[in-house]
C-alpha cells in the first residue's frame, strides 16, 4: 500500500500547482497521473492567463471580478470570483519568480494582451504557447521539491471511510496492478470532459474521470449543462483554430461566400463573443448555407507573410489535419465542445462536501465561470484554486490522525476490472462512445429543446445500461492496457453526459452557453441558482437546487457587449 499525507490526482496545471503548494507547506505529497505531467492538456492552451497586473493600462481585481461575473451571465458565485481575481496578480508573479517564460513589454515587465469580454488588456501570455510554458515551469518545481509522481497510474475510485476521504485506488498501467493509495487529503485535478462530444478541442485524455469518480462516490456535479462551444475548430479532428485568427482579421464565410456574421452581430461581426458566433455558424449550417456541414475560415487576404509570422501554429495544424494550406485556401471549420464550466461541486477553497476531498481546475465547479467562461480565466482558475485547495488541505490534515485504509474499495475495484477483463464478448467502448457522442451532438449541442433533451436523457440511460451489462475489453494484457483504460474513461464520460443532459432539460431558460429554443430568455426570478446532480442508482441523476448563486457587489443586469 502507498501512503502520503496529500495525494493529487492529475498532473496538469491545477494538479501540479496544488502539489507544489502542499510540498512548500511541508506536507508529504504525491501526484497520481495517467500521463506524464508535461503531456497534460493544459499544454495546448495558447492564448493566455488573466490577471489585473495593470502593466499596460490601469486595472484592478475589482474590474476583473466585474468582467468575469458579467461574462458568467451572473451565475458565477461572486465571493469565489473575487477571491480568484484578487489572488491572480500574486500568482502570476509567483510563476514569474519560478522562471515562467512570459512575453515582455519593452521595459521588461510582463506583457498583456486584450481578450474577449475584458475591459482592459489583462491577459498575460507567452507567444502562442502560454499553457506549455506554465506547464513546464510547474513541472520544474516538482523536480525541485522532489514531488513523487505516480506516472501512468489511472485513478479508478475515491475511498471514503466514516464520511471522510481516505485516498484513492489507481490502476498501474505499467503492470496492470490495482493499488490502494491512502491519503489524509485527496485533490482531484483531472481536467475537462470534452470527449463527451465527438467534435471537441479537447485531447483524447479529457474524459471526465474526476467527474465520474467523485459522482460515483456521492459528491454532486454542479452546473453541468453549461458547456462552452468554440466557434472555430477543424472538422477533421476538432483541433482549435485560435480566436487570434479572427483577431488578425480572418473572415467567416458561408456557402454563398457571404461574411454572414454581420447579420447576427452588426457591430462586432466575426469578433462577437464565442457563444454568439457559434450560434450564428450553426444557424447558417442548419439553414443550408454550409459547405459539407461547415462554414469557412478564410485567411487568404491576410497574406502569406502575416500568416507565417502570427499564426504559424494553426496554419501547420490545419495543413496536417486537412491537407489545406490556409495561405491558399479557406479552412472548413465548425463549432466544437471546448470547455466544461460545470464540474465537481466545491467551495471557494476547493473543498467538496466530503472532508478531505478537494477539486481544482477544469474538473471543479467553484463556481467562477458560471454559465460562460471568459478566455484566459481557466488557466487562472487552475493556478489559483490549485494553490488554494492545497493550502486548505495542508491545514486540514493537521487535524486528522491516521486514516483507515479502504481495502473494501480496493476489492470492489479489483472486481470491477476483473469483471471487465473477464468478459469474452459484449460491446466495445468505441461503440458505446459513438452512441453517446451521437446523441450528445444531436440533442445537447448549441441549440437545445425539450424533446431533444428528453431523447438525450433516454438514449444516454440506454448507453449506461448497456455499459453496465456488457462493456467488453478486447485487450487482456497486463501491460499498458489502453483498451481497458478507454473503457473506464467511457464509464466516467457517460456519468458526466447524463448529468449534462438532465441538468439542461430541467433548466427552462437560456443563459450563457445554454441556449434553449423553447425558453429563449434568461429567467433570473427562477434560475439564479446552481444545478446539483447527485448519483442515483436507478437512472438519471437526482437534481437539487438548494445552492443559490452568491451575489455580492454586482446585481444581475442584461448582458450585452
Amino acid at each position, binding site marked *: 500500500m502507498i501512503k502520503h499525507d496529500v495525494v493529487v490526482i492529475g498532473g496538469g496545471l491545477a494538479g501540479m500547482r496544488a502539489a507544489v503548494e502542499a510540498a512548500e507547506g511541508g506536507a508529504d505529497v504525491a501526484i497520481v497521473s495517467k*500521463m506524464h505531467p508535461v503531456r497534460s492538456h493544459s499544454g495546448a492552451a495558447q492564448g493566455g492567463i488573466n490577471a489585473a497586473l495593470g502593466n499596460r493600462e490601469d486595472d484592478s481585481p475589482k474590474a476583473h471580478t466585474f468582467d468575469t461575473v458579467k461574462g458568467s451571465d451572473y451565475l458565477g458565485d461572486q465571493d469565489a470570483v473575487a477571491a480568484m481575481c484578487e489572488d491572480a496578480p500574486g500568482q502570476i508573479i509567483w510563476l514569474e519568480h519560478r*522562471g515562467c517564460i512570459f512575453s515582455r513589454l519593452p521595459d521588461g515587465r510582463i506583457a498583456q494582451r486584450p481578450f474577449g469580454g475584458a475591459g482592459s488588456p489583462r491577459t498575460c501570455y507567452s507567444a502562442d504557447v502560454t499553457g506549455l510554458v506554465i506547464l513546464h515551469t510547474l513541472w520544474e518545481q516538482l*523536480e525541485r521539491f522532489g514531488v513523487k509522481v505516480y506516472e501512468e497510474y489511472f485513478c479508478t475510485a475515491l475511498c471514503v471511510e466514516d464520511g471522510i476521504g481516505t485516498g484513492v485506488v489507481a490502476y498501474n498501467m505499467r503492470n496492470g496492478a490495482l493499488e490502494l493509495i491512502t491519503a489524509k487529503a485527496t485533490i482531484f485535478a483531472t481536467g475537462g470532459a470534452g470527449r463527451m462530444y465527438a467534435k471537441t478541442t479537447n485531447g483524447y485524455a479529457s474524459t471526465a474521470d474526476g467527474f465520474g469518480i467523485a459522482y460515483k462516490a456521492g459528491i454532486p456535479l454542479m452546473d453541468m449543462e453549461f458547456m462552452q462551444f468554440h466557434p472555430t475548430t477543424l472538422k477533421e479532428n476538432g483541433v482549435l483554430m485560435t480566436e487570434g485568427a479572427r483577431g488578425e482579421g480572418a473572415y467567416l464565410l458561408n456557402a454563398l461566400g457571404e461574411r454572414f456574421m454581420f447579420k447576427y452581430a452588426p457591430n462586432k461581426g466575426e469578433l462577437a463573443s464565442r457563444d454568439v458566433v457559434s450560434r450564428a455558424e450553426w444557424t447558417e449550417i442548419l439553414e443550408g448555407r454550409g459547405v459539407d456541414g461547415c462554414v469557412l475560415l478564410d485567411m487568404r487576404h491576410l497574406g502569406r507573410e502575416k500568416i507565417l509570422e502570427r499564426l504559424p501554429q494553426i496554419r501547420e495544424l490545419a495543413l*496536417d489535419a486537412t491537407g489545406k494550406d490556409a495561405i491558399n485556401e479557406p479552412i472548413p471549420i465548425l463549432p466544437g465542445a471546448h470547455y466544461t464550466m460545470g464540474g465537481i461541486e466545491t467551495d471557494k477553497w476547493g473543498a467538496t462536501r466530503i472532508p478531505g476531498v478537494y477539486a481544482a481546475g477544469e474538473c471543479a465547479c467553484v463556481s467562477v465561470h458560471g454559465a460562460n467562461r471568459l478566455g484566459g480565466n481557466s488557466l487562472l482558475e487552475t493556478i489559483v484554486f490549485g494553490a488554494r485547495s492545497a493550502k486548505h488541505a495542508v491545514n486540514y490534515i493537521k487535524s486528522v490522525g491516521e486514516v483507515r485504509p479502504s481495502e473494501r474499495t480496493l476489492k470492489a475495484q479489483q472486481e470491477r476490472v476483473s469483471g471487465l477483463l473477464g468478459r469474452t464478448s459484449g460491446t466495445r467502448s468505441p461503440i458505446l462512445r459513438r452512441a453517446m457522442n451521437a446523441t450528445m451532438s444531436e440533442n445537447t449541442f448549441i441549440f437545445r429543446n425539450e424533446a431533444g433533451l428528453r431523447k438525450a436523457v433516454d438514449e444516454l440511460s440506454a448507453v449506461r445500461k448497456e455499459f453496465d451489462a456488457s462493456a467488453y475489453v478486447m485487450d487482456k*494484457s497486463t501491460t*499498458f492496457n489502453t483498451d481497458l483504460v478507454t473503457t473506464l474513461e467511457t464509464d466516467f464520460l457517460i456519468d458526466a453526459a447524463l448529468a449534462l443532459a438532465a441538468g439542461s432539460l430541467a433548466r427552462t431558460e437560456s443563459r450563457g452557453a445554454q441556449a434553449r429554443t423553447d425558453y429563449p430568455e434568461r429567467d433570473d426570478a427562477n434560475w439564479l441558482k446552481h444545478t446539483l446532480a447527485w448519483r442515483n442508482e436507478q437512472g438519471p441523476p437526482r437534481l437539487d437546487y438548494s445552492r443559490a448563486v452568491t451575489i455580492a457587489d454586482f446585481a444581475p443586469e442584461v448582458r450585452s457587449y
Partner: protein
Amino acid sequence: MAKITLDIFRFDEAVDVVPHRDAVVVDIPETTTVLDALETAKADVDGSISFRRSCRSAICGSCSMNINGITGLACKTPCNTVMDETGAIKIDPTPNFQPMKDLVVHMDPFWDKYARLKPYLQPSDSDSAHERERRVSPDDMKKLVDVANCVMCATCYALCPVVSVDPAFAGPAAIAYAYRFIEDVRDGQRKERIAQISEDYLWLCAHCYACSYCPKHVDPNDRIIDVKRAAIKDRVLMNERGPRHALVVTKWIKKVGMLHETELIAGTIGRFNVRGLLKVAPLGLRMAYKGKMPPMFLKPIPKVDEVRTIFDALEVPVS
C-alpha cells in the same frame, strides 16, 4: 477514402520474447494522420494495439514513433505523405528506447537526463527581494521562448546516433533545456550548469544534424553549438578533451587552412599528458606502418588568407 495498411510492430514485455508484426487495414481518407489511422485500427479492428497519445495536435509530445523508418509525431504525419504505392505504412517504436508494449516505450532514461540538469530556475537573489516580476528584455525572453516550444517528444533523442552508442550522453533535448537556463538572465547558476552539461558529455555531440528534424523547430543542434560557445566564452572545464579539440581544430585551420592531424592529437590529449599520448601511440605506429603517418609540419595552403576571412566574418569574439 483509401484502404491503408498499417504494418505494426507488436510486442508485450510481460509475455513476448520476440516481437512480431501485424498488418491492419483501415478505410479512411488518405489525409488522416497516422495517429488517427491507429485510433481507427484500435477502435474498429484490434483493441489491443497500444500507443501513447493525448493532444493529437503536436503539443503534448506523446506520440513520437518510427514511421517508415523516420521518427516523428504520428499526429503531425498525414498518411498520404508516408504511405507507399500499395497504401502501406510501417510503424515501429522509436529507436534508442526499450519497447514496453507495441509502440509504447520506456521513457525513463530520457526523463533522467532532465533530472540531472536541476531543471528549475535558481536565481542569485531571493524572490522576496522582488515585489513584482524580475525585469527581462523582450529579446532576452524571445531566445528562451524559441526553446520553450520543445514538447519533450524525444524525437531528437531517438534520432541521435551518439545516444545509440553512448546512453550516458545527455542528448539533444536535455542540452536544449540546459540552454534555456544558461541563457536565462534571471538564473544564477550559469557556470555550474555549463559544467554539469559538459560532464554529461556535451562535447560528444558530433554535429551530425540528425536532431534538426525536430517537429517543433527547436533546432537542438544549434542550441548545442550555443552551449559549447557559452562553455568556451565562460572558460568552463576548458581542460577537457572536448573544448581542447574544438579549439585546436579552429586554431590550425585558421593558421594553415587545413586539419593538422598530429597537432590535433597532441592538442586534444595534451602535449604533456604522457600517459594519454602513450595510449594513442599504437595507433600512430599502425598508421606509420601503413604509410599513413600525417606530416609533423604543415605549410599553409595557397589561399589561406581567404580561409581566414571566413573566420573573421563568422567568428564570435571569445574573451
